């Protein structure tokens, strides 16, 4: 195997793979190095109990960019996205709430709680959909450089202006509100029933260490509506074979274009000489050289661990050190002997074939946050449950099921320090199962195997610093031309030939592929390779 490449990509998560595929497609000689035995990073499927395939970390696809699917021919390489049927919020007393693709059915469900909300709901959806459409160009563009005097750069801000200009008199103030308000307050302006607001408000706090009443959380609600702007592409759902299926389809595309991919290849150091990245050294002593090194890892790993502080000035280091991770989520994956039954809606109907939110009220969510603020995991957490085996039987043996539970809050910084997660992991898992057991009596007895991932595990096993699921909080001050640091949002870094392409760059986390694609676009445009 030749050891000199046009580009070495550190990390075989979906963004690293997307970047590799685009570069290889343009004929560049590319090598991807993944630390783990399996590709996918946080978009990974693993068979941790015989016959049961867990989507270990991420579990639904939201925003995988349609042009990436097309450009890389992903369906040909096995990508299949299956729809989520609905959003179900079970209750301990009463029937709970299910939001369906059918507007009439949803209206009827909501009107059990509020006739007014039932009618406002579609109007809200329309308003959000329009705003999401207006904002969409931003997620597909390389962020402009606000410090540049280059007129072309400044022209790009016009795109932003266009976005704002597209909004009408009613929408503009709404947009401004979204950027500043808390998701709970924003929803209060529209709705009155708690059972509706709670599951909607949570999309504002996923992956952040903030509560539904924390200011600035409202705009993330938009992301929830982004999936719909792509029309029939509707890249919102389960991936066939678990989320790892997405990463593997991208890997196959990259390989078909000629990229080389190595697993169990952990980068210890990015070699820098004369202010230029020249290659990488692996923990096992292997070395590879390249014209460019592209890291899909977060800034801490990339700059502080792999490069070393000496290559950066204080200003940059300051930004990198202040960049916030503050992981707040965990994951519990269960192998089930049989399908669980909800007390509030028994049966194996369509209501459990979508996403299920344990989010009975705004207060419940805020209380969960309160506990986490002081270094404890929530005693009654927000849990987002999916049972993909109902839609994709290939992930579990016949009649058996996998249940994926995304849990918040599980603060990285426990009162006793993050390392104490080693002692609290199983208690955390027990809390999650006990919470679910209240809604699904008998669940505990049906568990064949359980995997508990705390932020500590996400850091150790998945290379996500402080366990942040998005490689850094998706809060406004860490987005767009500020991600990961002001002046360095364009995939370049202060070290020549060293680039970034992961979720820590614009437009951020989630299975989007956009950072990887935009980084490749930028490098090709700058003739970096």
């Amino acid at each position, binding site marked *: 195997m030749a050891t000199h490449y046009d580009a070495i990509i550190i990390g075989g998560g979906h963004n690293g793979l997307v970047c590799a595929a685009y570069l290889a497609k343009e004929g560049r000689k590319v090598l991807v190095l993944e630390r783990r035995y399996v590709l996918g990073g946080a978009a990974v499927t693993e068979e941790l109990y015989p016959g049961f395939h867990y989507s270990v970390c991420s579990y639904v696809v939201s925003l995988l960019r349609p042009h990436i699917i097309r450009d890389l021919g*992903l369906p040909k390489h096995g990508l*299949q996205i299956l*729809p989520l049927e609905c959003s179900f919020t079970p209750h301990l007393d009463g029937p709970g709430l299910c939001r369906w693709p059918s507007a009439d059915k949803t209206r009827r469900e909501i009107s059990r709680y509020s006739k007014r909300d039932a009618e406002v709901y579609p109007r809200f959806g329309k308003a959000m959909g329009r705003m999401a459409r207006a904002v969409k160009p931003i997620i597909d563009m390389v962020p402009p450089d606000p410090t540049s005097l280059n007129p072309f750069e400044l022209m790009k801000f016009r795109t932003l202006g266009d976005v704002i200009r597209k909004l009408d008199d009613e929408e503009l103030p709404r947009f401004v509100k979204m950027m500043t308000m808390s998701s709970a307050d924003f929803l209060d302006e529209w709705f009155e029933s708690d059972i509706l607001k709670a599951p909607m408000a949570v999309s504002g706090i996923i992956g952040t260490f903030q509560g539904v009443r924390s200011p600035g959380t409202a705009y993330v609600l938009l992301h929830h509506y982004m999936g719909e702007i*792509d029309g029939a592409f509707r890249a919102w759902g389960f991936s066939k074979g678990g989320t790892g299926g997405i990463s593997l389809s991208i890997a196959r595309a990259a390989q078909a274009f000629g990229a080389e991919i190595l697993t169990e290849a952990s980068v210890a150091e990015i070699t820098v000489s004369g202010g230029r990245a020249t290659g990488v050294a692996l923990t096992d002593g292997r070395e590879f050289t390249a014209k460019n090194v592209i890291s899909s890892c977060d800034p801490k790993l990339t700059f502080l661990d792999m490069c070393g502080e000496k290559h950066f000035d204080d200003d940059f280091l300051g930004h990198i050190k202040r960049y916030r991770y503050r992981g707040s989520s965990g994951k519990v994956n269960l192998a089930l002997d049989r399908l669980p039954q909800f007390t509030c809606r028994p049966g194996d109907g369509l209501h459990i074939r979508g996403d299920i939110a344990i989010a009975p009220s705004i207060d419940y969510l805020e209380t969960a946050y309160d506990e986490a603020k002081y270094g404890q995991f929530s005693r009654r957490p927000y849990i987002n449950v999916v049972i993909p085996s109902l*839609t*994709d039987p290939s992930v579990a043996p016949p009649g058996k099921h996998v249940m994926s539970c995304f849990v918040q809050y599980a603060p990285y910084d426990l009162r006793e320090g993050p390392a104490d997660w080693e002692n609290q992991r199983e208690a955390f898992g027990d809390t999650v199962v006990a919470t679910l057991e209240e809604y699904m009596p008998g669940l505990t007895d049906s568990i064949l195997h359980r995997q508990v991932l705390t932020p500590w595990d996400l850091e150790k096993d998945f290379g996500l610093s402080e366990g942040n699921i998005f490689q850094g909080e998706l809060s406004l001050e860490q987005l767009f031309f500020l991600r990961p640091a002001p002046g360095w949002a364009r995939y370049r870094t202060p070290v020549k030939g060293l680039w970034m392409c992961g979720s820590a760059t614009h437009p951020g986390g989630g299975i989007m592929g956009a950072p990887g694609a935009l980084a490749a676009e930028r490098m090709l445009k700058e003739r970096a390779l």
Partner: protein
Amino acid sequence: MPRPTPFHDRLQALCTSYAWKHWSGYYAVCHFHESPEREYNAIRQAAGLLDVTPLFKYDVVGPDAGRFLSYVCSKSVARLKRGRVTYLCWCDDDGNILDDGTCWRLGKESYRVTAAEPSLYWFEEHAEGFDVAITDITDTVAGLALQGPTSRDILRQVCDIDVDALKFFGVKKTTFKGGFKGHVTRTGYTGDLGYELWVRNKHALALWDLLMSEGKAFGIYPIGLDALDICRVESGFVLAGVDYTSAHGALTPAEKSTPFELNLGQTVQLDRGPFIGQRALKAEAERGSEYAFVGLDIDWVATEKVFAEYDLPPSLPAAAWRSLRPVYRGTRQVGRAYSGTWSPILKKNIALATVRADVASPGTVLDIEITAEYERRRVPAVVSALPFFDPPRKRA
């Protein structure tokens, strides 16, 4: 008044959408819930169960049964082995297609034919001089299509045949769990791994219940015709009455088509004893066909752009469409699309079309008419080879 099939009681209980249509005089479900999406995915990811009773079915029996079928059909069935099924069509004297269907060989002198349109009269009219008896069993034999990647696992649970030994386009007599008899054919209209199960009407409900209970662990789901339609477009299967008009029903010569024009050339065997339409089809084979049946891959980016002009996201019907849409090459109209769909599995907007033979080679860029905000527009569509979707499991 259409009538219920023997499965009706079960279908009715499940069909919360009340979306029914008429299929050859029977009630058939379009989709069980609001949209066919879940049913479509059941076919592609697990298993879908579809009532196909309304298909016309004929038993053709007698010393001359094989000779007779070879005479009326485009293909000889003389070499069709016992336990095998073949796909074929039949034409009029001018080589224009009347119908397409399957022919199973059940015994030395015994065949069964399925058809989309009533064909008894046509068969009987041409049976003169052959020692053959043709029986219409449409109303006495019920059928269920069990289609999708887990269909084989389900079949294993419900009958006594060696399921792995049943190859693509095989047929086998079986006793189902519960003791009733019937046939299993490894056929279907979804382009996926799949089977069709046939029993006498009185066993229909037992078969349905058996499949639904044994299939549960394998994700079985009842499906309607809308989901089927998406699958059959992906698989490039023509549909009589939609993609072509039977010569019997055509009002003008232009409405008729030949098997070659429908991409059914593989069902025509020219060099053999006489058969109906032979001379015309031979002449066409020599001369070359005027039209070809192709797939169209409708440019999504261009579609998005057209809709963006109206400040709209691209919108497509939730189900497959069936309406004539003109196809152009430059300013010249070169054909028409009959049906199309958004393919969820390929993430492509696809259509089936008849176009002039000179623009039919894969890769040719044509234009197709679309409607955006009530206005007629054109977007590019690339000619694609059929089928669009062809998973190895279909034959494996």
